[in-house]
Every structure is written in C-alpha cells, then in structure tokens.
C-alpha cells in the first residue's frame, strides 16, 4: 500500500479534495437558494415552540406543534 501511495503524484490529493469541496458547496448552495420562505420560517421558529407555551393556544384548540409560526421573521 505504501509503495502504491508513494508512486502517486501529490498534486492528485488537493485536486480531488477541491472537487469534493466544490461539489459539497454547490449542493448546499442549491438547497438553500431553492428553499421556500414558508419552510425556512417554520424551521427557524422551532426553538420558540417547545410545548411549554401550550396554554396560550388552548383557547384556539391548536397545538403549538401544529400551529403556524411567527410570520416574516426568518430569512
């Protein structure tokens, strides 16, 4: 194994690394650029609804886990 590795050119390693990095970055970029505002708003608001605030929703009969999150806050 050591002999095989030693015969390889070193430039191969950073080049492959760069391709992998760019692939990951492009994939993540596509994900975030095409996410909907609705979805982001919901996800960003998850910490604000942990179940302890349920009483405030009792009158509406809506459980906070299923309730709409705050509008217009997250990007």
């Amino acid at each position, binding site marked *: 194994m050591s002999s095989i590795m*030693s015969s390889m050119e*070193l430039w191969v390693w950073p080049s492959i690394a760069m391709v992998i990095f760019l692939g990951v970055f492009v994939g993540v970029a596509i994900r975030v650029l095409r996410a909907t505002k609705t979805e982001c708003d919901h996800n960003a608001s998850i910490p604000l609804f942990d179940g302890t605030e349920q009483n405030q929703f009792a009158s509406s009969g809506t459980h906070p886990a299923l309730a709409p999150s705050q509008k217009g806050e997250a990007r």
Partner: protein
Amino acid sequence: MSHPAQATQPIGEDGATRLESFKYDDAIVRKFVLATVLWGVVGMLVGLIIAVQLALPAANLGLEWTSFGRLRPLHTNAVIFAFAGNALFAAIYYSTQRLCKARMFSDVLSNLHFWGWQAIIVSAALTLPFGITQGKEYAELEWPIDLAIAVVWLGFFGVNFFGTLAVRRERHMYVALWFYIATIVTVTMLHVFNSLAIPVTLTKSYSVYAGVQDAFMQWWYGHNAVAFFLTTPFLGLMYYFLPKAAEKPVYSYRLSIVHFWSLVFMYIWAGPHHLHYTALPAWASTLGMLFSVMLWMPSWGGMINGLLTLRGAWNRVAVDPILKFYVLGITFYGMATFEGPMLSIKSVNALSHYTDWTIAHVHSGALGWNGFMSFGMIYWLLPRLFQTNLWSKKLMSTHLWIGTIGILLYVIPIYTGGITQGLMWRAFDASGRLAFPDFVETVTALMPFCWIRVVGGLLYFVGVLMLALNTVMTVLNRAKVYDEPIITAPALAPRYIDPPVPETQLAGNLGVALAADSVFVSGWFHRVWERKPLKFTILAIVAVVTASLFEIIPTFLISSNVPTIASVKPYTPLELAGREIYIAEGCYNCHSQMIRPIWAETKRYGEYSKPGEFVYDHPFQWGSRRIGPDLAREGGRQSNDWHVRHFKNPRDLNANSIMPTYEHLLNQPLDFEGIQRRVDVMAMLGVPYGENVKSGKAIEAARVQAKQMAEDLVKQGGFEGMGDKKVIALVAYLQRLGKDISQPADAPAAPAVAPTARETFKAGDKVLSANVSAKEGAR
C-alpha cells in the same frame, strides 16, 4: 404556515391527531449546570495560579505537584473538558429535549453520563499533578481514562442523544441538532484515533504513532478538539439559546445550513497549520493553511447570523445582561475566527508560533466565546431550572463588565508580549549576530505583561466567583417542589410520506440538466436528510472522514514524507527512562523540540530539525510554546554537572530564570526495574532495540550508563550519589537530544558516557551536513 409536509401528514393510524404526554428531564440539566459552575471555579483558579507562577516561579511553593509543567495540563483539561464540557452537556440536554419534543431517551444513561464524566474529571485531577500523562497536549490523560472517556462519550451520551432523536416528535431536526450530531461523531473519531496507544503499565502508555505522524495525528486532534468540542456545540447553543433569550427566530435559516456544512467540511482540514515550518511535509501544512483561510467565511457567516438575530431587539440588549453576554461572546467568536485564519498564514505564523500571541488568541476565544456563551446560558437557565428568581441581577451585570475588562486586560498584554517575544527572537544586530542571544533576555522582557495578565485573569476569576455566588443563592431559594409541566405533542407517524417533489422548470433543456434537476430540484435531497438522523449522521461522518483521510493517508503512506536518517538510533534504556520523566514533568509545556528552518532559529539553536530525527519518538515532544528555549539540539551543549545543578535550582545558574526547581529529581530513586517493560513495548512498536529487548538486558544497560554518568559527574566536581536517581536519566536524555544527526551512520547506538562538552556539539556540525544531504531527500 406549518411545514407543508406536516400539514398533509396523517398523524396516527386512524389519521387523527394523536397527542402524547411526557415531561422534560430538567434534573439532569440542573446537575450539568451546577457542575459547570463548580469546575469553572476550579479550572480558572488553576489557570490563575500558573499565570502567577510565570511571573513568580516561587508561587509553586517548591512542590513537584504544583509546578507549571504539571498544573498547566490540569488547567487546560479542567477548563476544556470540565467547564466547557459540562456547559455543552447542559445546553444539549436542555435544548435537545425541547427541539425533539421528547424526554431524553434514557434517564439511566443521562445519569451514567453525568456521573461518569465527573469521575473522569476527578481522575484527571488525581493523575495530572502526579505526572501521569501521555505528554500530548489536550490529550494527556492516560489509557484507562481514555477508555472511560470513549465509553461515557459514545456509550452513554451518544446513545442517549441519538436515542432521543429516534423518539422525537418534531419531524424536522433544527440546525442546533446538526451541530450536536457533528460534535458527537467527530469527537469520537478524534479521541479514538489520537489516543491509540500500547499500555506499559496501568499509568503509562506509548502512542502507536511516532514523530511526524504522531505530530500530525495530535494536531489533527488538537485543532479539531477546538472545532468540535469548543465550537460546534457552542454554535448549537447559540442557535438555540440566543433565539430563546431574544424571543426571535434565528436571522437566516438558509445561512445556518451553509454555515453548518461549510464549517464541518472545512474545519477538519485545518489542523496542520499548527505545524508550519516544522518537520511536517510542506504540502500538508500549506493545505492546512488554505483551508484555515477559507474557514474564515463560514465562521463569520455564523457570527453574522447570531448578531443579526438580534435585529429589532437591540433595545433589549441594552437592558438585558444575558443578551449582552451573548453579544460579547459572539463578537469574541468573530474576532478569534478572524485571527485564527490570519495566524495560519505561514509568514504570520513564523512570527507568532511558540510565542504568547497564540495564548492570547486561545484565551480571547475561550474566555470570550466559550465563557460568555456559557455564562449567558447559565443565567438564562437558573430561574427556569430552579423555578425562582435569579438571586441578583445586579451581580450578573457586574459579572458581565468585570469579566469583559478581565478578558481585555488578559489578552492585550499577551498580544503585546507575544509579538515582542517573536521580534526579539528574530532580531539581529548590525554585525549579523542575534541581538538577544541569551534566551532569558526575552523572558524578562515579558514580565510586566505577565503581571498585567495576572490582574486580568484575577478579574475574570472574580466574575466567575460572582456567578458561583449567584448560582448558590438562587439554588438556596429554589422551589420546594419543582413544577414539572406535562407536555403534549403529537407523535410522529411511523411512516412518513414525502410531499411530491416539485416539478422541474427546465423543460426544453438538455437531458443531463433535466436529470440533474430531478435530483436537485428545490434541494430536495437535503430536505430529506434534515428529518433522517441516521442518514444525516452518516453524511456528517463522510464529510469529516473524507477531509481527514485526504491528509492522513498521504502523510502515513508516502515514504518520502518521512525520510529516514541512517545515523538516528533508538534511545538507550536509560535515555528512554529519562524521556519518560521529561514527559511526566510536562517539560513540553515550556520547551519545544523543533528548530524551524528560519535563520534566527538555526543561528540560536543549530541545524533545523529533520523528519527522520523523530522516527523513534513515541510520543513526539515538539511542543507548541517556548517559555524556555528550544531543546532539539540540547545534547552536548552543557555539562552533566550543569544540568544537575540547573534542575536543583535554575536560579543558581541564571538569576532571571523562571523555570521551577526540580530538586525532587535529585532525591527520588529511578525505577530501573520498570525499564525493561518500557523497552519491550517500544520494540513492539517497531523501535529496533535488538539485544536490549532480551530479559534483563535493558536494566543492565541502564545501570551501566547511569554508573558511568554518575562517575563522570563526580569528576566534574558535581554531586555524588546520583547514579540511581531520576535526574541522571533525565540528563542522559537531554544529552542525547539532537546529536544523532551529527554522528556517522555507523556510530554505536549510544555513547558509553554522555557527552559533556560544547566542543562535542561543534565538532559534530562538520559531520552533520554531509550526513543529512546523503540520507535525507528534499523536504
């Protein structure tokens, strides 16, 4: 506005909403919070003590257990793994339950985790001051404790965390959970691979790696311990507790996704920047530098996301000390993560490395980012966990300001001192000679800065005492019986039906584009990962493992990375025993053994260090700091007598030295009987000991060399009766350092009597050049 998938998802087998009731386990969070405060006081007190010792060596009271070399690892372990560790556990246990809308998977595992971790911390406190250490920075704990860490971290904590994810009632995993996942899997990987060692005794082991490869593994671990123990879990903390305290959602969830993946993917590459200009292959350190510079962007992305979360709430920041803690903590994070990439640039690192500049950088991050984020979280949690008002808001506010002033008084003088130190080391006079040839000149110049640092550290410590007082008083006023609200949340349906994938908008384009778009449309692939813990965890592992392998495989397998040098021989059994004392006393905390190919260094210390010189060093001892001079070529520079007197009291030979006294080494007997076992283990690791491995041979060889050195010592007018004392082994080791490279290739493995004269070293220089050029390839 609920998640479109969730809105259409039938909940329960009958399609109706089925609510489940449960309680959050806050008892475990209370325990971790109290442990955080306790260990914060202990760890920072030890830090304060060793800061005083740098300015006033006598502050160690002449005790071997309280010397700088032994207490510094205790300080770093206490603040990193005890203080910050318990803080991140408190954060994870509190937030994970609420983000998953589920109680922790197992109360038993929670408690095993808590008590197991505290037992590990106590074990560290009971071993490090006694010199029981592996001698690798931030990974000093010996193998039984290392095994315990693996069990507690992954077996108790990891299983409990992932079990909670498995039983969660919130479909989407919030971004804080991603950071926790990355923390758990990466720390496991780092800890296991860096700690691979062969036990010699219950309290001693040798790293399976040697020299360059050990250094690479250590700083792959060391840097990423900062990344995945002090950064990612605290970013998770920020993404949860900052929105909670500000009562506003995070500024940009999109940015948090980019932040996570780019940080996790890039951080793991950056370790080699700790080894610029050392014997590490240049390609590896350059790669580390490039990724470190790129790392600036995701780091600042996170900082910006944190600070902008407070948009529209800055009026509250003005009156809320908790938000101020967060703002200052995130700001320090931003400063530290700007400075880190800057220090990783080779030309900057040439000046900063080994100086106090690095210490200032570390403390701006640790005191500002980790400290203040933890304090903000604790102050926010105390009233909620103990169900009473915080005892004193005024004291909390005072803590904030005294802590801030303390940080500034701590780091600013060390920045100044560090740069002064670096410039003095490389200063030349008009005739081309070192302007400050006596190393101690560069030490005494820093004394005023050391004292200001003590004041800064004292102020910060007083702030921590205020936190402790506030915590104790709040706990004393706690509710008699805790109200444990029953939470109800709908269970997740056992089977999840994905909403239809949005249709492509690329109609009419090339087939390849259409195919790609069917995969990537709306980033659907990632959206699915975000609700699948196993898949997400595997991908996080792939991200960190890929990066690691691209650096580790070439370093370990390409032979030209570590060219061998024919004249480099294993340490003699006595020198090996001395090396163990060097490690036990923590000498690496103040002395490096790595001369960089920089003119000022070769002028001061001699020929630069070669990778092939360290092939038998299990573990490597390159160090990361020069409170004292480099020792890579110490062999033959001073007489045996000088060394023994220097250990007895350094100030007898150099009035301005700040080195602790090591008189105990002149009195304590050397364990000759244990040497055989040590040589055997080294042989097992591939060190070619030959005849010495035979039973009893190593002990006999050690006794012969010790006897000869002791006689030589007496001839020089030195102390009598040193032949069976620890000091003789340590002196034998020091006299060997850096000498092999100047010996002919066919020289015997060790001199019969340790060399004593400076002339020996100078004479060797003539052999050195030819020897190296013949045996070592270009770096």
